[in-house]
């Protein structure tokens, strides 16, 4: 582990300790959201960053995970096993989806992945017997005090985020990681040097969906009520991309940093600009893509002022 990652890990632990000491419900909720956002951003980064396939299917995997957990838990399956179902269902679905749309490239892949969540939402809406349809679904409480439960879900989300981080770290140094980077940069050339591109892309999508599905499962148990428009929300596909863009697409720690910054912005904007927060987020996307395509880490070493000077000196 290099010094930068060590610093990040220590910072994360410090934040955790703070949260544990100050058992404020708002802070607990924020920290749990951070775990979920970081997981989703890192999960997207596996397919969208490492492999360079701009997936908009994160919401689909998240929603599948949430409903898998919902259905399992209401049928008496224990919590951890229910989350296992969430991960497995999302991953299995991604394997099938991958064989259908991973031969598409660039924007065509993006569009194909975009409609998946919509289709699943409609299916969930009409499959009333199992999912409760548009009325949504109530999940059983796990039976501790409100504060204890909050800690359980905080721990679950943070452990999930740590697992996703570990997977990204491993991927970054593995042969599969090299294959994905080659695919991202030039897929034809990747095939010609002997990379089984279809296999590598499918594994990347399955890994991505696994963590997104688990996050959906944990979310469902945490909030105890899910409905199709909530867990198949297109924003769940877009936000992780934004976070990765903020922190640095295709890097290991970038999405974590991005999730932190994004969560901070979201809280600030929600609170202070209730009627225009979505507009501000849109502007943020435009500015990011235009001026900082490599993410906030492009500022590193120069500071914001130095970076601005560099831009306007030209």
């Amino acid at each position, binding site marked *: 582990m290099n010094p930068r990652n060590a610093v990040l890990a220590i910072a994360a632990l410090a934040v955790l300790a703070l949260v544990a000491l100050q058992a404020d419900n708002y802070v607990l909720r924020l920290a749990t959201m951070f775990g979920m956002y970081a997981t989703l951003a890192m999960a997207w980064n596996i397919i969208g960053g490492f492999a360079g396939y701009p997936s908009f299917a994160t919401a689909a995997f998240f929603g599948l995970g949430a409903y898998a957990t919902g259905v399992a838990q209401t049928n008496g399956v224990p919590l951890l096993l229910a989350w296992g179902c969430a991960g497995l269902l999302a991953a299995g679905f991604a394997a099938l989806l991958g064989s259908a749309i991973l031969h598409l490239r660039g924007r065509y892949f993006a569009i194909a992945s975009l409609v998946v969540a919509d289709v699943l939402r409609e299916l969930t809406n009409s499959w009333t017997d199992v999912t409760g349809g548009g009325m949504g679904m109530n999940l059983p409480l796990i039976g501790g005090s409100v504060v204890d439960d909050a800690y359980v879900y905080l721990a679950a989300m943070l452990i999930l985020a740590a697992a996703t981080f570990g997977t990204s770290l491993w991927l970054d140094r593995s*042969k599969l990681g090299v294959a994905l980077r080659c695919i991202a*940069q*030039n897929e034809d*050339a990747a*095939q010609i040097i*002997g990379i089984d591109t279809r296999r590598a892309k499918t594994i990347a999508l399955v890994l991505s969906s696994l963590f997104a599905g688990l996050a959906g499962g944990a979310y469902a148990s945490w909030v105890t009520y899910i409905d199709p428009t909530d867990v198949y929300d297109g924003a769940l596909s877009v936000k992780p991309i934004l976070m990765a863009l903020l922190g640095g697409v295709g890097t290991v720690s970038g999405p974590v940093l991005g999730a932190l910054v994004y969560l901070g912005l979201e809280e600030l904007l929600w609170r202070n600009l209730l009627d225009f927060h979505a507009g501000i987020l849109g502007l943020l996307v435009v500015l990011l893509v235009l001026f900082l395509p490599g993410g906030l880490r492009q500022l590193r070493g120069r500071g914001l002022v130095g970076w601005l000077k560099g831009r306007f000196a030209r």
Partner: protein
Amino acid sequence: MTEPLLSIEHLGKRFRGLQALDDVTLELKQGEVVGLIGPNGAGKTTLINVITGVHKPSAGTIHFRGESIAGMRPDRIARRGIARTFQIVQPFPAMTVLENVAAAALFAGGETSLASARGKAAEHLHFCGLSDQADKPAASLTLAGRKRLELAKSLALNPTLLLLDEVNAGLNTAEIDHALELILSIAARGVTVLLIEHLMKVVTRAASRIVVLHHGRLIADGATREVMADEAVVEAYLGRRYAARLAGAGI
């Protein structure tokens, strides 16, 4: 007589209405350097694309070391020992030059770890004269550098058969001489080479045999000198004035 390394029979490739390759039959023997020439649009690159699995053939068979490879996926064909360069160079732009070559060594060159692949890559870069650029991003190379990188990448696959698609196009005279030397030393290692080339100077020096494609058909196949004097080849490709000059120069 030994079995040919690559044996192509009645190969056809049709893109909708365009017959890009038509009944092409061709054999390459182990250790040969064969020049593939022909006018633009004759089907030279298509032939390489079909051999390497980028396109599936519409008709005919391709056997490599006695095994049918027609319609096989490109990565499988690459791992069996057929490497190619692209006419329009295809680096991984954000990786360093060394990483580009190491990736090739890792996936089809038989290297088992990243570290050993990097070591092997350094050797190939040295061979291709790119050692000084090893740690630069591939996107920063000049065209000549990128062409050499393509060569280094294809060598990293440990190929038995190397298909070179205009590695000299766009290079200046000094760069061409260097590339020609590289091709000759690759051939000296025992690698069989199929060389697509417009520069007759390179073809005549490197190749012992020439095949000529015209409108997707093979119109000549034989020893360099004979093919250069062939009436159909002169008509379709070389032009009379060039043929006369070659004859005058005693080639």
